[in-house]
């Protein structure tokens, strides 16, 4: 790293500072919509970062990551509907179930490679999607409105927009830190080693399957947390939260931002969601711009926005 003020670092810092100050701006201008919008960005950014842990660093391209968004949300929603309003029960329960689901999915999926892995993760998320549709008591296809957000005693009020925003922000930073620590630990090096040459890692004596499985579960749990936040934020959960198109969105965010770094997917989430929102104000036909843009990223900018910024330093 040559110096602290590379274009990339400046960009990352600018994004983080802007995200940190957003509520202040919103309060000054009484613009509640912008705050809602960026709360969603933070939550989906967190999901994209968790996906990138397995996809970017572990080489496990999961096409069913949105399942955890849905499962996290549903566990919270179902408990809320059944009268368990305490977040101290709801949140750990949601994370536990997401972890167990990831454990089961991972244990079966990680036997496969390449496109088969993409398809089997997709299959499991579709199963979760259809189970949610079959949950008649919890709205089936329609999903359900959640009347009360998680309760954490008197000090914490999730209905307060500013508080909720900063809660998401802090959890996002914690996620970034956790993933960063993981990636740079011995564990992370094994995962990344397995991505480039799994046979060699096994030959050296690392049980790569177990390492990858643990990594898969961690990513699922983090995404489950994002799911709990999202359902709390929208006061609503429905099966579409785990539709395969949503999984595709998460992949797009991660790749668009750049899979090589921990923060890349966050930049991708900011860019993708802002692009969608801004384009929707100028044209009805966002796909005509967004579609070719994704094609171009896939063809010419594998490193995503992050990669372009890295390139600027050299050029």
């Amino acid at each position: 790293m040559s110096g602290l003020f590379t274009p990339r670092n400046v960009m990352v810092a600018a994004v983080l500072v802007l995200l940190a100050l957003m509520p202040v701006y919103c309060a000054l201008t009484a613009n509640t919509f912008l705050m809602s919008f960026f709360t969603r960005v933070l939550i989906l950014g967190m999901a994209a970062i968790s996906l990138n842990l397995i996809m970017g660093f572990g080489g496990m391209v999961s096409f069913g990551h949105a399942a955890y968004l849905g499962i996290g949300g549903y566990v919270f929603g179902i408990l809320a509907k059944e009268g368990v309003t305490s977040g101290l029960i709801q949140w750990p329960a949601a994370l536990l179930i997401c972890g167990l689901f990831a454990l089961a999915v991972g244990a079966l999926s990680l036997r496969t490679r390449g496109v088969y892995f993409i398809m089997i993760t997709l299959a499991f998320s579709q199963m979760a999607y259809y189970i949610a549709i079959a949950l008649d008591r919890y709205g089936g296809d329609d999903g359900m409105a959640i009347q009360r957000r998680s309760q954490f005693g008197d000090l914490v009020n999730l209905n307060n927009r500013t508080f909720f925003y900063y809660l998401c922000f802090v959890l996002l930073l914690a996620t970034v830190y956790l993933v960063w620590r993981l990636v740079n630990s011995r564990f992370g090096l094994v995962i990344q080693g397995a991505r480039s040459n799994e046979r060699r890692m096994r030959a050296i004596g690392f049980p790569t399957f177990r390492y990858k499985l643990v990594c898969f579960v961690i990513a699922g749990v983090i995404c489950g947390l994002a799911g709990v936040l999202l359902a709390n934020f929208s006061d609503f959960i429905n099966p579409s939260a785990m539709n395969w198109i949503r999984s595709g969105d998460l992949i797009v965010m991660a790749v668009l931002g750049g899979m090589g770094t921990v923060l890349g997917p966050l930049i991708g989430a900011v860019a993708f969601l802002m692009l969608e929102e801004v384009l929707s104000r100028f044209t009805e036909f966002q796909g005509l711009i967004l579609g070719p843009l994704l094609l171009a990223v896939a063809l010419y900018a594998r490193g995503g926005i992050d990669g372009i910024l890295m390139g600027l330093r050299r050029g």
Partner: protein
Amino acid sequence: MKRYLLAACAVAALATTPALAQQKTVKIGFISSFSGPVAAIGNDMRNSFELALDHLGRKIGGLPVEVIYEDDQVKPEVGLQKTQKLIESDKVDFMVGYIWSNVLLASLKQLVDSKTVTVVANAGASQLAGELCSPYVFSTSWNNDQLPRALGTYMNQKGVKSVFQIGPNYAAGKDNLDGLMLSFKGQVAGREMTRWPDQLDFSAELSKARAAKPDAIFAFYPGGAGVQFVTQYAQSGLKGQIPLYQTFTIDELSLPRLKDLAIGVPGVSHWVNDLPNEANKKYVADYKAKFKLSPSFYGSQTYDAAMLIDAALKETKGDTANKDSLRKAMEKADFKSVRGDFKFGPNHIPIQAFYLQDVVKEGDDYRLKTVAKIVDNDQDPHVGKCKMPN
């Protein structure tokens, strides 16, 4: 550097649009479906709302008006986001629209929490009439189970002893199938619910209906799915064997596509284009003149929604800030409805008559015709569960 500028521009574009809530203009947010096979419904609603504004001299309650139309894509989560945007970003005074019960139920909390005065112009989720009723939410339509309940009464008169029910698996589908059983005295030979809105192949369900040998089939498929259902019903050869009864499946929007296939399939409605009152004659004639199409019941309800808001604003002298007086003015419903008499029940759902309608062919034209009044002053069955605050 260019990139940073671009990013800054994007942030600025997001930040500036919702600025300056204007004082003199009434802002109305309008949620409906403008894409997909149900776009015809959304267009009919938009046309009717615009026609009402024409009739009011492009003003509402004497004030200039701005309507912001948003497409819910028939998805609850999209409807919720659009509702949030209209309330928070555009800061609308009224919300109008909502075709789908599930979209409405997803968005309801936002509407209620923000105390936005809302006129639901179609969705008749039973929860809205019951436990989720709200002081600021009104309906110019009906409750989902009122139409099938009236139809069930008619089916009893026809001596139908068993029925096979088919409908989509979403809030209104369940309400409709349940609603029929509120009055129908015969047996249920079977009940099938299909995935909504993406399942359009009903072959397995129709085969099942044939095997069950019922006296009649009852179907609820609103929008484009209605065309698919009635077409497949005819294709399967069931048409000569087991008669079809329907709610919301055949309307003015699907009729031009169904033509002969729709003849002989009775239905129920609270509004038919030939209802003989002055407001309705004017609405139907002007609609046909302006849009070269026949309006549907979806449009009629939306036309009424505009007139209801207009009357209420005239009552409050254009004041939208005092929600309580606005609510009282809305509850009065002092306007001429295209369906004739109009009054609200305590849960803000209309108390109204329901008619038997039939399809007739006049020359090359197909249209719906009122046959008889089945029930008068009908009130939904959920009103008892509504605890409306004063």
